[in-house]
């Protein structure tokens, strides 16, 4: 009976090791060979050459960090000049979520960010929510999509320093929106019917909503730094 790999690893780590295992390994050629092999793997790992780090513009990054820190302290003293804009975006995000609940008849495509990074709950006026709960027409979807475009355009510029995960999410959403836009642009040529167009517009609204939610979460994060 040979020793299991976890026993050999524990043996190699000089962890508490069963005396019987120790005795077996000492006397077993197979296990000794396996222990030597494990030792060799670890030595190879430890002596692997280093990678060369990419060059970073630390001066620019440092200046950016200082600017953000100052912006935060200025905002603290002057009473949040962008408060109304942030509230408007938050309310729009909340409205988007209400709207999206009406789109359950179609399978979602890529709307995963809204679930992962849900903005905080905000009060939506009852009449707005009631209007949103009605089944939207293509015209409503188009105008809503345009509203989301405008809101996105109004958002502050993205920070110079980005989080890798946030950038990946934003890139992915923008790619998908471009793909939907392309499909919509050729809808007439390929003969899409109104129902198919509506599905595409719903997708666009959903993706735009997700993009707005991510951008909002990113802006909030930088606002508190």
């Amino acid at each position, binding site marked *: 009976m*040979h020793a299991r*790999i976890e026993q050999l*690893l524990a043996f190699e780590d000089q962890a508490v090791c069963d005396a019987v295992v120790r005795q077996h390994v000492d006397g077993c050629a197979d296990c000794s060979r396996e222990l030597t092999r494990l030792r060799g793997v670890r030595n190879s790992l430890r002596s*692997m050459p*280093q990678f*060369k*780090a990419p060059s970073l513009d630390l001066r620019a*990054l440092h200046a950016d960090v200082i600017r953000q820190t100052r912006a935060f302290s200025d905002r603290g003293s002057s009473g949040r000049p962008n408060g109304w804009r942030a509230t408007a975006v938050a309310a729009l995000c909340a409205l988007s979520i209400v709207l999206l609940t009406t789109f359950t008849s179609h399978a979602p495509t890529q709307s*995963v960010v809204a679930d992962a990074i849900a903005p905080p709950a905000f009060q939506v006026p009852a009449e707005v929510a009631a209007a949103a709960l009605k089944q939207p027409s293509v015209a409503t979807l188009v105008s809503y999509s345009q509203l989301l475009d405008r809101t996105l355009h109004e958002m502050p510029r993205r920070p110079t320093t980005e989080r890798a995960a946030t950038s990946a999410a934003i890139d*992915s959403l923008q790619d998908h929106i471009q793909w939907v836009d392309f499909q919509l642009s050729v809808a007439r040529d390929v003969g899409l019917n109104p129902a198919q167009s509506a599905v595409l517009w719903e997708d666009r609204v959903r993706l735009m909503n997700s993009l707005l939610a991510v951008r909002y979460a990113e802006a909030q994060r930088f606002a508190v730094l």
Partner: protein
Amino acid sequence: MQPPSSSNDIDPAVIAAAQAGGTEAFEAIYRHYGDRIYTLVRRLTSRESLADDIQQEVFVEVLRSIGAYSGSGSFGGWLRAIAINKTLSYLRSPWVKRTLWLDAIVPHEAQALLDQAVADLSSASADGVMTGDQAALDAALEKLSPNARSVVWLHDVEGYTHQEIGKMLGGTASMSKSQLSRAHLRLRQLLTAPETSPCTPVSNSY
């Protein structure tokens, strides 16, 4: 060639200068630790573009919070902890889990060529020449799951205990141990030629 876990720390005066806001001190810190931190991040992620992004995030975090470094422990250890936290939280993010990498969908025939190209690039971009064994090990490491690769690297190279790794990964020491065992089994499969007969795992009865 210096192993990644080497712990020679930078002059405390440089750290103090960086805490006072000196950009040159930050540049000195980057020159001193940049490669080591990048190697750690690159080994955990196994993808160059991700590692580049995370490297920047790590050093932005250092720029932001260097004032919080009290000097009680090693500065290199503090930096490593930031790098590991950033990398693991990135690997845990739903975006990474849902990402379908190009090399995961190429046909089987193309995979061998791609593996070779990746191995060549890895060897070429490392600051030194790998031996044949190391190149094979490098390629095998890339085939492990991110969690398994992280456990192997953090335990076998960086020297963290199972307890520490379990905590970093949001689990337990025994989870880390079992991940390490499975990872080494997988590495053995990937590295051992089919004609050799490895020590067969059997039940724990003597």
